[in-house]
């Protein structure tokens, strides 16, 4: 089966005041359709950096990352943006739903950018809000939603363009235990419904829901 993401001996080195700081040191992994992968590790171990390489948000300093069969450092910024728009969904620790838009409008945003036809947009918004249990909150702004609702909204936004892969960076980091559990269940459901999920987390309970758990430490997978 073709991998959605192939990371081969990827290094990511940051340069700070002339000093080179390696965040990733020769990491290799593959993500396949139907995968549910958790990446765990202490703060500063390179989890988010790895997730950024896997989402085409960043490029490796050395080694290679292939997304949907294409080598990221050979793609233009526009091609990477289009790939993220159509094939990858992102979920962030701080939700980052746009505060001046309603939940519905936040969901519409990626669809508008992808030029999804109006009728299809309306249908998908209904479907996604129903999926995450927020249909009754569609006209509310993020400031009127709880943390759990915000993160469910963010998951719905990540799914707006029907991606094959969802990347979540500490999605339960700002939530209480119970709400974190609900979000974990939501990711499991997303995975069951055919979307590959990669979660970077400190949360062992969330990690335990994954099929595979990779531990990263000092920029190396163990």
């Amino acid at each position, binding site marked *: 089966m073709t991998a959605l993401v192939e990371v081969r001996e990827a290094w990511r080195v940051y340069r700070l005041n002339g000093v080179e700081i390696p965040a990733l040191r020769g990491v290799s992994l593959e993500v396949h359709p139907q995968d549910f992968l958790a990446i765990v590790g202490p703060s500063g171990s390179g989890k*988010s*950096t790895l997730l*950024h390489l896997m*989402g085409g*948000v*960043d490029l490796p300093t050395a080694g290679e990352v292939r997304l949907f069969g294409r080598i990221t450092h050979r793609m233009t*910024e*526009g091609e990477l*943006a*289009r*790939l*993220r*728009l*159509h094939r990858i969904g*992102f979920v*962030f*620790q*701080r939700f*980052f739903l*746009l*505060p*001046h*838009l309603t939940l519905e*409008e936040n969901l519409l*945003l*990626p669809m*508008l*950018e*992808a030029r999804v036809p109006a009728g299809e947009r309306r249908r998908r918004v209904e479907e996604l809000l129903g999926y995450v249990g927020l249909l009754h909150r569609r006209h509310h702004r993020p400031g009127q939603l709880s943390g759990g609702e915000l993160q469910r909204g963010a998951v719905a*936004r990540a799914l707006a*363009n029907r991606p094959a892969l969802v990347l979540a*960076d*500490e999605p339960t980091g700002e939530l209480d235990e119970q709400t974190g559990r609900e979000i974990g269940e939501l990711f499991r459901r997303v995975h069951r419904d055919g979307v590959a999920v990669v979660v970077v987390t400190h949360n062992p309970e969330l990690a335990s829901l994954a099929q595979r758990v990779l531990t990263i430490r000092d920029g190396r997978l163990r």
Partner: protein
Amino acid sequence: MVAFLALRSLRRSPTRTLLLLAGITLSGSLLFDMTMLGSGLVESFGGVLGRLGYEIRVVPRGTLPLSSALLVPNASGIVGEIAAHPDVAWASPMIATQLYAEAGGRRLSVVAYGIPSRLPGLVRTEADVRDGAVLNALLARELQVRPGERIRLGTRLSPQTLAPEAAVEVRVAGLGEFPFDLRGQRTLAVPLSVLEELLGTRDRASFLVVKIREGADPEAVREWVNHTFPELEALSIPALLQAVRGQLRYFDHFSVILSGVSLVVATLLVGTVLTLQIGERLGELAVLRALGLQRTRLVLLVLLEGFALAAASCPLALGIGLGLSEPLDAILRALPGVPQDLRFFVPSPQAALRTVVLLLGAGTLGAAYPAWVAGSLHLASTLHREVQG
């Protein structure tokens, strides 16, 4: 999508946006006033000239176009030749001079025009100049005369009696308004023949006026007059306006400098507020990029925000500018030596359009730096810093 997002972004901090709009609106209103000033004076002067009823004014070459000295000799001969031109409807000599007017023992210095009867534009009146003298309201009031009464006109006062010498008596035909009257100026118009008789200068004129036939080209006639009478200079309305424009260049400079200042203020206002706003929204912009918006779309988003701010302030800026132009116009028209009919601030669709275009340009230009900031943010490090915290 970007336009939708830009408009929504401006509504996220309504108070800040309203304050910014107020600032741009005030700058825009000043810009509109200065745009009106830049073109208004010449437009207004052109309007006055256009209403006079002739298209070409012929003066001795090298003299001022509005001189009142009797400098055109052989006026009737020249007028006859000009009138014979196929594109000329009629031509006439004109006299403008200083006289003394007397009635009931009151003697006043006046500006007198000897005008052909077919030139109603020089004085707005219901009376007929052929019936006698048409006085402006100030002169009639100060001489205490009414239509139907008689006044005496003289070229100078007798040193012994202080009465006008070489006087003629004319009937007051009525009252009228003279477009070139200065504030406090006493003016009258009489038939050309009256002044010729009074001045004893047959066949001399201050200048000649030429009416062009419908559909004919005034510029062609002007060139023909200049070529045929090299000692004279024919000035069409555009040529006269050009001469006036040259003399009023300081108003242009004034207008350009203040317009520039208002544009810079509008640009800086938009630039400062949007730069601050973008600084607060870096995480949000990085998320938008992560979701799949391209760098150029973010640049466009911020530029549109600047454009939208300027566009939203345009209607009020034009309204306030229009409202302010009235008192500003009154102040400038109170200056000495300004003809009553002249307006400094003339509203026109062109001035409004120019203001709108400049203001939209300033808004967009102001958004250029924050747009560059938004477009050049490093996605991964911004996500690390802003989103993961």
